C-alpha cells in the first residue's frame, strides 16, 4: 500500500511518529495525481482525447509549492518536538469554490477564471493551521450549480474513479473523485442540496454535510447562502470526524456560524449504537417526479439494490444493539425540490450580481456602448448556461409581483420540512429517533452526458438530500455497497441539529460491522490505471 492510500488518521500517525515524513506523503500524492488525474480542467480545452477518457481530471489548479512549504514546516515541527497539528501531513484538496490566498479561485466559471483571491477561507485556514497539505483546487459544477460536474467551464470535467465513463456527481465532484482515487486523503466540499453527499455516494466515499452554522462559510463563494454548508469528504468515517473537528466552530467573520460548543467527534466514534433509535421513512424510499407537461407528480420506488442496501445497514445496526423504528413520517420531503428551486435561485441570482466585470474577474473584450452594455456583454460571455438559468429563474420568482406566489410560499414549505424533522427528533414526540437512515440518492452515478442538459431531472437526483439543507440539519453519506454493475451505493444518515457526533458514531459502527464484506474489498477502476 502506498502512502497516498493511507487514511488521514494513519498518515497523521505516521508523520507524528516519524514513520514517514510529510514530504514523502506529498511525493506519493503527486505521483498518484501524475498517474491518474490527466490534464487539469481548463477553459477552451478542446476535444476530449482517448486518453482524457481514461483519467479522473479532479484538479483545476495544483498548488504543489504551497503544499511543499507546508510539508516541510510540518516535518520541521515534528523534528523539533512541536505539535504539528491534528492533520499533520494530511494531503487535502479544496473545492474550487473556496477562496485561498494567492491561488486562482475560479468557481469553475469563466467569469472568475482569472480571479486570484487575496484572502483565505476560514475552513481552509483551519486545516492548514492543523498541518494539512493543500495540494490544489478541484473541479465542480460551475458555481456549484449541478449534480454531475459536467457544467464546469473547466474541461475535461472529472470522471468517476469507479467507472470512468460515469459522472462523479456534484457539485463537489472533484472533491469526491480526488479522495476516491487516492490523490488526497480529505477534501473540503460544500453542500447546498446534496452537493457533498451525492458525489460521495457516487464515488464511494464518506461525505458529511454539517449542521448549518457548524462550519464557517467565510471564503465560500456563495450559492444559496441560507443553505450552503462546507463539509468533509473522506475515505472513512474517522477521517471525516478528524476533518470536522478541525473546521467546526464559531467564526467571528461569519455571523451565521453557531456558538454551540464543538464536541470531541473522534472520542465519540467508538461508542457503538447500543440503545440508539434509528428510523426508516417510507417517504425516503420513493421519489416524486413531476411530469414536464402536466406538472403532476408520480412516484417511483428507489431501485431495489438501493432499498436493500439501506435495509441491510438497518439490519447490521440492529444486530449491534440499535432499535430500528419503521414508518417515520416525512410527508413534506417530496416538496423539497420545488421549494429549493425557488429559494436557492433567488439567493443565487442576488449572489451573482457582484460579477459584473467592474472590479475583478472576466470583462468583455468587446467595446461596450455604455455601462449596461458592459454588464450585459460581460455576463453573457462570462457565465455558462447554469448560472444564466438560475439568474433568470431567481429574478422571476423574487420579482415584486411574483414573490408572494413563489418565494414566500417556498419559505413556508421550508418551515414544514423543518417541522417533519423536529417531530421525528423530538424526544417527547410520537416517534422519537436519534437518526434517520435513508438512501443518499435514487440512482447510482449515471453515464456521462446521459442526463446533462435536463436541468429538472438533474435536480431530482437531490431529492433525498435536499430536505436536510432546508431544515439545516446534519447528514452524512456512507458507502453502502456496490450495484451489480460495480457502481457505489450511498446510504444516508440524518440527525438533529449539532448531532454530527451521533451520525459519525453510527457510521463508524456500520463501517466496523461491514469491514469484511466483499464489496469493501473492491478497488475503483482508477486503481488499475
Amino acid at each position, binding site marked *: 500500500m502506498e502512502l497516498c492510500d493511507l487514511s488521514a488518521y494513519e498518515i497523521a500517525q505516521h508523520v507524528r511518529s516519524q514513520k514517514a515524513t510529510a514530504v514523502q506523503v506529498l511525493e506519493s500524492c503527486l505521483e498518484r495525481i501524475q498517474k491518474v488525474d490527466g490534464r487539469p480542467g481548463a477553459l477552451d480545452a478542446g476535444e476530449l482525447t482517448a486518453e482524457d477518457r481514461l483519467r479522473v481530471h479532479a484538479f483545476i489548479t495544483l498548488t504543489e509549492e504551497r503544499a511543499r512549504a507546508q510539508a516541510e514546516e510540518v516535518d520541521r515541527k515534528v523534528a523539533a518536538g512541536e505539535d504539528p497539528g491534528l492533520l499533520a501531513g494530511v494531503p487535502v484538496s479544496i473545492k474550487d469554490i473556496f477562496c485561498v490566498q494567492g491561488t486562482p479561485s475560479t468557481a469553475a466559471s469563466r467569469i472568475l477564471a482569472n480571479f486570484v*483571491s487575496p*484572502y483565505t477561507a476560514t475552513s481552509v485556514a483551519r486545516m492548514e493551521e492543523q498541518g494539512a497539505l493543500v495540494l490544489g483546487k478541484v473541479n465542480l459544477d460551475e458555481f456549484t450549480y449541478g449534480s454531475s460536474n459536467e457544467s464546469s467551464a473547466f474541461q475535461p470535467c472529472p470522471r468517476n474513479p469507479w467507472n470512468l465513463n460515469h459522472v462523479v456527481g456534484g457539485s463537489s465532484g472533484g472533491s469526491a473523485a480526488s479522495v476516491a482515487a487516492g490523490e488526497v486523503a480529505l477534501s473540503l466540499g460544500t453542500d447546498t442540496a446534496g452537493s457533498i453527499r451525492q458525489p460521495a455516494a457516487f464515488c464511494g466515499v464518506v461525505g458529511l454535510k454539517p449542521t448549518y452554522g457548524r462550519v464557517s462559510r467565510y471564503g465560500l*463563494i456563495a450559492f444559496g447562502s441560507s443553505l450552503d454548508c462546507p463539509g468533509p469528504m473522506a475515505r472513512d468515517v474517522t477521517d471525516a470526524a478528524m476533518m470536522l473537528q478541525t473546521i467546526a466552530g464559531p467564526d467571528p*467573520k*461569519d*455571523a*451565521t456560524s453557531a456558538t454551540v460548543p464543538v464536541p470531541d467527534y473522534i472520542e465519540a466514534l467508538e461508542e457503538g449504537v447500543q440503545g440508539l433509535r434509528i428510523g426508516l421513512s417510507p417517504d425516503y424510499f420513493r421519489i416524486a417526479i413531476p411530469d414536464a407537461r402536466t406538472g403532476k407528480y408520480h412516484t417511483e420506488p428507489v431501485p431495489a439494490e438501493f432499498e436493500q442496501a439501506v435495509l441491510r445497514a438497518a439490519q447490521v445496526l440492529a444486530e449491534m444493539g440499535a432499535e430500528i423504528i419503521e414508518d417515520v413520517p416525512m410527508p413534506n420531503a417530496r416538496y423539497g425540490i420545488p421549494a429549493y428551486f425557488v429559494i436557492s435561485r*433567488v439567493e443565487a441570482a442576488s449572489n451573482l450580481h*457582484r460579477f*459584473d466585470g467592474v472590479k475583478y474577474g472576466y470583462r468583455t473584450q468587446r467595446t461596450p456602448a455604455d455601462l449596461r452594455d458592459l454588464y450585459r456583454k460581460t455576463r453573457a460571455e462570462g457565465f455558462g448556461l447554469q448560472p444564466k438559468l438560475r439568474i433568470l429563474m431567481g429574478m422571476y420568482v423574487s420579482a415584486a409581483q411574483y414573490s408572494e406566489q413563489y418565494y414566500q410560499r417556498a419559505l413556508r414549505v421550508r418551515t414544514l420540512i423543518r417541522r417533519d424533522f423536529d417531530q421525528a427528533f423530538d424526544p417527547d414526540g410520537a416517534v422519537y429517533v436519534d437518526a434517520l437512515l435513508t438512501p443518499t440518492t435514487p440512482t447510482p452515478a449515471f453515464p456521462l452526458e446521459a442526463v446533462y442538459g435536463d436541468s429538472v431531472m438533474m435536480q431530482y437526483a437531490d431529492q433525498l438530500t435536499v430536505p436536510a439543507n432546508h431544515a439545516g440539519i446534519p447528514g452524512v453519506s456512507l458507502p453502502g455497497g456496490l450495484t451489480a454493475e460495480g457502481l457505489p451505493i450511498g446510504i444516508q444518515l440524518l440527525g438533529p441539529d449539532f448531532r454530527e457526533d451521533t451520525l459519525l458514531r453510527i457510521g463508524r459502527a456500520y463501517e466496523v460491522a461491514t469491514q469484511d464484506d466483499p464489496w469493501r474489498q473492491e478497488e475503483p477502476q482508477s486503481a488499475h490505471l
Partner: protein
Amino acid sequence: MTDYEIVIGLETHIQLNTTTKIFCSCKADSWFDPPNTNICPVCTGLPGVLPVLNQAVVEKGMLLAAAMHAEIQPVSYFDRKNYFYPDLPKGFQISQYDRSLARGGYLDLPMPSGYVRRVSIHKLHMEEDAGKTKNAGRERLIDFNRCGVPLVEMVTGPDLRSADEAAQYLIRLRQLLRWIGVSEADMEKGHLRCDANVSIRPRGADYLNPKTEIKNVNSIEAVRDAIEHEAARQIREVEAGNRIEAWTLEWDEDAGVLRKMRSKETEADYRYFREPDLLSLPITDEWKERVLAGLPELPLERRARFMQAYGLPEYDADILTGERNLSDYFEAAVQAYGGDPKRVSNWLMNDLLRMLNDTGRTADQLKVTPQYLAEILKLVDANTVNTSTGKALLAKVDQSGKAPRAIVEEEGLAQVSDDSAIRAVVQEVLNESPKEVESYRAGKVTLMGWFVGQVMKKMRGKADPSLARGILEELLGGG
C-alpha cells in the same frame, strides 16, 4: 388665481459616527484618505465574504430612534436591495425593508414665527452606504472607501408645508444628531444628505398630487432654494394647464437651477429579500435600557425648561440650547453663580459666544470654566471689579487658565472705592482740562462721560465708576 400650498417630505441619509464600518472592521470615516485605501475584502464585496453587524451601529440607531420618539422594535431584520451600479460592489445593498429597527416617531419644529410643526417619521432604518462615482471625461472613477459606512435612512411623512419648514427640519435634525452624539451631521462632508419630495395642491385640499423628487440637496440653503424653485415651477405648470409628472430632479447649487435626471414612470423593483448572511436582530429590554440610559435631555425639552425654570426669553433659550455643550455650560454656571440666570445668559451670549466663534471651540473647551464665569460675576456684583474689568478678566482667564480672583490679586485689579483717592485723581483731571470744564459748566453736560473716562484711564480702570461720577458732579457743579 388658486391659492396653493406646498407639500414636502424629506428623505435623509445620516452617517453614524461609529469607529468602524457597519459590516467590517475598516474605519468608518475616510474624509482624509486617498481613494480606495480604507477598504477590505468585505466592504468591496469580494467573492466569499460575509457581513458581520457592528453593534455600535445598532446602539446609535437606537438612540436616534428614541430621540425621534420612534418605537424600537424587539426584532428587526436586514434585507438585500438588489440593483446594479459600479459603486455598489456586491450588486446589492444591505438595508432594512419591512421589519426595520424602529417604527413611527416625529420631530417638532418650533418655527420662528411662533407655531410648531410636527413632522411624522415614516421610515427609520439602518443600511450600508455605497461608494462614490466620479465622472472624469470618458472614464468613471470609483472610490470604495465609503462602501459600508453606516447610515440611518429616515423618511418623513408629507408634513412640511414650506421651504422654510423643510430648512427648519434639517436645522433641528442636525442639532439633534450632534446633541445625542450619533453623527457629526456635517452636510458638507455628506454626513447628512437629503432628497426632497415636492408637490403642490390647492390650500385646504387633503389629497396628494404627483410629486417630484429632488436629489442631492445637501445644504440648508440648497433645500430652501430648490424647493422654492420647484414649487414655483409646479404652480406655473398647473396654471398653464399642464400635468405634473413624477420626475427625478437634481439641484445644481452653483447655477441655481433644477435639472431633470429621469422620468419615473415605473418604480424600480429591487427584489428585496431577507439577507441570509445576517441573523435576525433581537433587541432585548436590558440592551435597550442600557443604551437609552445614555440618551440626554433633548434640545427642545431643555429649551422649554430653560424658559420655565430660569425665566429666559425664548431667544436666549434657543441660542443656549443650540448646542449641547453650551447648554450644559450655562446650567453649570447658573448653579455655581446662584444669582440671576438672565445675567449669566447675557454674559454667555454677548461675550463667551464671541470667544467661541472667534476661536472655533466648543464651550467645554474653554478655560473659563462655568465656575470661573460665576466667580467673575460675583466679583462684579460685589463691586470688587467693575463690569469692564470683569469682561477683561474673561480673556485673561481664558488665556492663563488661572482663577479670576487670583488674577485680580496678582494684577491689582480690585476696584478703588476709596473716596479720597478718587477725589485726588478727579481734581487732577479737572486741573488738566480747563477747556472741557468751561464747556461743561456752559451746559455741555454730555462731557460727563468723557470726564469719567479720563478718571478711569488714570486709574487703569480700577475706579468704581459710580463713585467717580458722583465726585465729578460734586466738583464740577460746585465750581
